[in-house]
């Protein structure tokens, strides 16, 4: 497939691994920010190919992973109401709340629908004027423009039975929180290419300078990740700490200006809880006062629904890179994809699920096919 096959080329990947190994005079600790990158790394076995030269810590970069329990509980509450059609991206449906997940709400008669775009949810609201349609607006900066657009269009069209349950998070404050942590081990970041496609990378420049940490804007295919890793290693070996762009086919320094403008009109920065990590100041988007009428939390009075996370779940430690998923005592036993304790076991991009699905068997002999 054009634009994909060339970034999955085994010979190129092998050459990059060789160069990374040649460049690294010691083991460097890198964090990939995005869950999509985690998946490529574990699914393709990149961490094994780089063992000794690079230690990969999987970052907090899955919006499904970091959605706090109480926001799931609020979603479950809304989805159970007779007058509401609750809409969401697919992988949010299996995230366990305190009592159950959205799939179970559906089995009990709640109307829960998977949509591929928030604009589809808006369309559903227009077709069902006698129902309230709520869209679960989650994601990093990547999904914010489309979600903002849905709210913007709803106001433009005068659709009053549409609202959004917002659980948006932003990347830079989470990176700073990690870097400020006393037991931080991350020496360089692979920043999420899709987030930067929207936001550009100017906001990463002060972080790289202040914390003296290389940040490489990186794509999602194996060759992207290996190339980003090589760029990080070269900076570390040379003692540089800059923002560099590996994902040149998609990202410009200033990002996508029209998308940013739309986001800034509809959303404003708010404090946001991250599942397992706790509240990070100014780390999420909430709706601006101007669009408060589309805020499901206010519309349906959800502020009183609060929840504590499972005490056994070490999602927080996994998400900040303090432990690997399999170092959690519940991993693979009391916590697995059928019965996930924490969100990182839920999403196919979650760090725990990625380990569970792809890394349990690591010593398969070469195939002779």
């Amino acid at each position, binding site marked *: *497939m054009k634009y*994909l096959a060339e970034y*999955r*080329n*085994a010979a190129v*990947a*092998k050459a990059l691994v060789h160069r990374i190994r040649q460049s690294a005079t010691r083991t460097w600790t890198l964090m990939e920010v995005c869950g*999509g990158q985690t998946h490529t790394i*574990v*699914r*393709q*076995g*990149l961490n*094994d*190919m780089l063992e000794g030269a690079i230690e990969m810590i999987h970052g907090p970069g899955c*919006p499904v992973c970091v959605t706090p329990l109480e926001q799931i509980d609020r979603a479950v509450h809304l989805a159970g109401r007779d007058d509401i059609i609750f809409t969401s*991206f*697919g*992988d*949010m*449906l*299996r995230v366990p709340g305190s009592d159950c997940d959205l*799939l*179970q709400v*559906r*089995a*009990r008669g709640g109307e829960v629908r*998977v949509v*591929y775009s928030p604009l*589809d949810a808006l369309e559903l609201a227009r077709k069902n004027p006698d129902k309230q349609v709520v869209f679960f607006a*989650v*994601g990093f900066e990547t*999904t914010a423009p489309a979600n903002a657009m849905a709210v913007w269009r709803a106001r433009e069209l005068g659709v009053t039975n549409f609202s959004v349950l917002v659980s948006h998070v932003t990347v830079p404050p989470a990176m700073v929180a990690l870097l400020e942590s006393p037991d931080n081990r991350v020496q360089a970041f692979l920043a999420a290419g*899709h987030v930067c496609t929207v936001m550009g990378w100017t906001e990463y420049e002060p972080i790289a300078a202040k914390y003296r940490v290389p940040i490489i804007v990186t794509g999602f295919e*194996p060759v992207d990740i290996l190339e980003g890793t090589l760029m990080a290693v070269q900076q570390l070996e040379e003692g540089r700490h800059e923002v560099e762009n590996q994902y040149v086919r998609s990202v410009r320094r200033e990002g996508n200006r029209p998308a940013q403008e739309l986001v800034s009109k509809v959303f404003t920065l708010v404090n946001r809880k991250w599942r397992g990590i706790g509240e990070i100041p100014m780390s999420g988007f909430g709706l601006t006062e101007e669009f408060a009428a589309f805020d499901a939390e206010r519309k349906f009075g959800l502020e009183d629904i609060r929840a504590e996370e499972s005490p056994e779940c070490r999602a927080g430690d996994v998400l900040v890179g303090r432990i690997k998923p*399999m170092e959690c005592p519940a991993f*693979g036993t*009391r916590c*697995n*994809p*059928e*019965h996930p304790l924490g969100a990182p076991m839920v*999403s*196919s*991009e979650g760090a725990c699920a990625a*380990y*569970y*699905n*792809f*890394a*349990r*068997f*690591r*010593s*398969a*002999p*070469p*195939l*002779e*096919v």
Partner: protein
Amino acid sequence: MAEERGPALAGGLVCPVPTTQYDRVQLGHGSGGKMSAALLRDRFLPALGNPVLQELGDAAVVGIGPAEVAISTDTFVVSPLEFPGGNIGSLAVHGTLNDLAMMGARPLYLSAGFVLEEGLSFEVLDRILAAMGKAAAEAGVPVVTGDTKVVERGKADGVFINTTGIGMRRAGFTPGPSRARPSDAVVVSGMIGRHGIAIMSARENLGFEVQVQSDSANLYPMVERLRGALGGTVHVLRDPTRGGVASALNEIAAASGVGVELDEGALPVPGPVAAACEMLGLDPLYVANEGILLAFVPAPFADEAVDALRMHPLGRDARQIGRVTGEHPGMVVMRTAIGGTRVVDMLPGDQLPRIC
């Protein structure tokens, strides 16, 4: 660490699936994944179990006098009723014929039961029945008995169809899910993922065009070619329907107590299927098929099996995609295109499209 725990966590039907706390049926129980297996194990087998049912093959094989008779039943609830490459009628014929064929049986007769929803247009019903009749006639397997029921609007989704088929096994040709042996070659008869993506593109408002037709087809002619060329050396046949190639291989690995190694580079995925899966965040290995088969044959016969399949138009893309090993029993492992290795597990429930 991970590899030491591996076998205990093999999943599929090997280790007990953790008890789930569901108090009622979820859609995921119909996915063909671990939840479906748990539903059978925890609810159906305790109530209905017997040595024949417990085999959990595509079809049951029972002795009637001197004959080995295969019986299979399947219920079709596909939405939409009509899709590129077929409709629920042709699918209901092919699905049951294929389940018989996978046990090595020659399909002989079909029954068909219909649950019709009040308000279903005769135009649609006629098209479904015509496709059904055509599929049955082409296969030379008549529908010899049937039943119709009508339910109130809202109590069904247009039409549900159940078909049951019976067939005769041939002496010396007894493929079965527990017969895979280390060093067997794993062969697939054609491109994967077409049925599931065709249905999804017809069902969902995806916002992009997918030019994929369902592969729904009668697999018996290909089975006949294999039988002619290899006879009793065919160990396992399986049509990887819901749950896709990955779930079928996991079931076989578990039933036979062997490991399976796949080669990602050898998997035949049509371009449009790969593109749709990329956009939706799905893995083609878990997408349903209705017109391909997996064959396990001893490695020395792999080329013969591929050649035999390629003699038939449906099998022109046949190829070897992996092999069986005595290592990691119950587990399917894939060598990735860039040289890494990963586990291909059974999914708990349905594949959920990813957020971004």
